[in-house]
């Protein structure tokens, strides 16, 4: 599942020349950190709940909002980009003083009606208003919430993120009146000042504290825990620090260790979050704590995004991977030979929707259920992975672009973009591909058989075999989301 070579290369590409300025764990440091993390995880094992394939752990229940995130039914509307605070960990560009309009997944939603049409069309169950500081756009948020609740009723769970600066009684009461379900306070933005939280717990049904796990603040947060519980805070969400181009320098200055992951995370932040979970359990603090790692967000939030739009773009002969990509299988041959194959499918009473030809008839696109009728000693198998995605207008890079009407006035486009293509030539590799990704057989067992059965006549062919194995490994990137916390390196 984890492809270290790929991760290291991506981190290098992402950070460019800054890579050498950042502290990455050495082999021995990674080993030591893994040992420490395992000890921590062992000490809390049995006392925490594991969610979504082990990608998230929590003490107690998750907020209903967090559950919609894990289930892929959460929409986050960034209502503006300006903020009242200037946090060292902010992943956004704080130097940009120009405010941006409400956006979600690259789509402008400056009209509540359009946004509600979007929520309805794609069956969202949760909405979070984020920013910048969302309360700088208080009037707009209020209008959106009123419209959401008016049209979607109680079936949708709504919350607002804030640093607390503008969370006065009047605004909180108006939000409550409009139907807001939850307020989430980043108290780290204002030195863990709890005044806003205290105010909100008296007005809003559910108040959550959502902060990054900052290593230097471990003791302060520890001291805050009983106070949060006493104030009636419903949940504490601890995030792993995320290094973006806008905050990595501050992280480097603090001596943090950067981790090679699909998105760059901070090692000490994960250790801090897990230590706080352990502290809360050891001291019988009943406040439910949810550790939201960066890998959870990368895996689950992105999967949710892809799954949401996949059904709109997937053809009958294509498949969907566990991680929400669309997988297309195809054979390239002469039109005569491909037609012979189709004759076999028809002879087996297979539905016509399970295959299709490309424009010039030289490629046959086949559903995976038809692979058993194809002789791969004569044919290679082409794999193409597509990412389902949204676009405000028809995108020429999309292979297929469907217009979706949100209401009488507004349309958006859902399409799929080619992200990876590969030809598997060897019949043993093709068989292993089917076992691993279609039949979902145990990975080590299939790989063992792959090594046992791959045709090897000369030592030189070992290199080919290892290359094929590497390809099978890499396909996991598109097939599976992965489980548990990420390997440290």
């Amino acid at each position, binding site marked *: 599942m984890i492809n270290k070579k790929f991760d290291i290369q991506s981190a290098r590409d992402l950070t460019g020349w800054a890579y050498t300025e950042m502290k990455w764990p050495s082999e021995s440091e990674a080993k030591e950190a893994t040992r420490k993390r395992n000890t921590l995880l062992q000490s809390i094992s049995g006392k925490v709940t594991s969610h979504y394939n082990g990608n998230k752990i929590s003490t107690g229940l998750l907020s209903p909002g967090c559950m919609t995130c894990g289930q892929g039914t959460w929409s986050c509307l960034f209502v503006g980009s300006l903020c009242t605070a200037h946090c060292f960990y902010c992943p956004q560009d704080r130097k940009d003083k120009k405010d941006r309009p409400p956006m979600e997944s690259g789509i402008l939603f400056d009209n509540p009606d359009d946004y509600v049409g979007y929520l309805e069309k794609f069956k969202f169950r949760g909405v979070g208003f984020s920013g910048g500081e969302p309360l700088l756009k208080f009037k707009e948020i209020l209008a959106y919430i009123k419209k959401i609740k008016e049209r979607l009723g109680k079936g949708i769970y709504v919350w607002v993120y804030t640093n607390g600066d503008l969370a006065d009684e009047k605004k909180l009461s108006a939000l409550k009146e409009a139907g807001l379900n939850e307020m989430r306070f980043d108290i780290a933005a204002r030195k863990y000042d709890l005044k806003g939280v205290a105010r909100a717990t008296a007005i809003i049904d559910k108040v959550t504290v959502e902060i990054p796990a900052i290593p230097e603040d471990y003791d302060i947060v520890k001291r805050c825990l009983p106070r949060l519980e006493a104030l009636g805070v419903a949940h504490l969400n601890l995030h792993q620090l995320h290094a973006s181009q806008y905050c990595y320098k501050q992280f480097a200055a603090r001596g943090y260790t950067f981790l090679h992951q699909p998105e760059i995370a901070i090692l000490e932040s994960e250790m801090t979050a897990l230590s706080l979970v352990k502290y809360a359990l050891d001291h019988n603090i009943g406040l439910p704590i949810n550790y939201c790692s960066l890998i959870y967000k990368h895996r689950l939030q992105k999967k949710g995004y892809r799954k949401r739009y996949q059904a709109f773009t997937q053809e009958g002969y294509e498949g969907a991977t566990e991680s929400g990509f669309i997988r297309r299988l195809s054979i390239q041959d002469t039109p005569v030979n491909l037609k012979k194959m189709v004759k076999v499918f028809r002879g087996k009473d297979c539905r016509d929707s399970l295959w299709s030809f490309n424009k010039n008839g030289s490629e046959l696109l086949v559903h995976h259920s038809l692979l058993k009728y194809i002789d791969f000693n004569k044919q290679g198998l082409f794999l193409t992975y597509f990412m389902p995605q949204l676009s405000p207008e028809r995108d020429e890079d999309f292979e297929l672009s469907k217009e979706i009407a949100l209401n009488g006035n507004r349309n958006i486009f859902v399409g799929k973009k080619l992200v990876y293509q590969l030809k598997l030539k060897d019949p043993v590799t093709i068989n292993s591909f089917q076992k691993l990704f279609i039949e979902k057989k145990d990975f080590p067992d299939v*790989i063992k058989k792959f*090594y046992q059965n791959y045709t090897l006549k000369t030592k030189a062919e070992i290199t080919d075999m290892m290359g094929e194995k590497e390809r099978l490994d890499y396909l996991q990137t598109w097939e599976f989301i992965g489980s548990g916390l990420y390997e440290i390196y």
Partner: protein
Amino acid sequence: MKKQITKDAVYAVSDGVVARKIENEIILIPIDIDIRDKESELFALNPAAQVIWKRLKGKKSLKDIIADLTAEYNSPAGVIEKDVIALVKELLKRKLLLEVSKN
């Protein structure tokens, strides 16, 4: 911590390895290849090492294997023992072999 090899121990090939014979060599392929773990690369057994490898089946102790080979190849016991211990040490380091029991 390095494990001491004792001649009373019985060793067997790990489940996590596949052996393929190509051009008179046996190539040992570990199933989980960790790119940072240099010990997990492919390992080739020459004909002499293959003779020892074939006997590491989890049934006989190293002492018995050494005795069998010494008798079979009519070679001084010290030479065979040195070769067997060296190979077992290397295979254990690469996690290609497991200790199953001690007699």
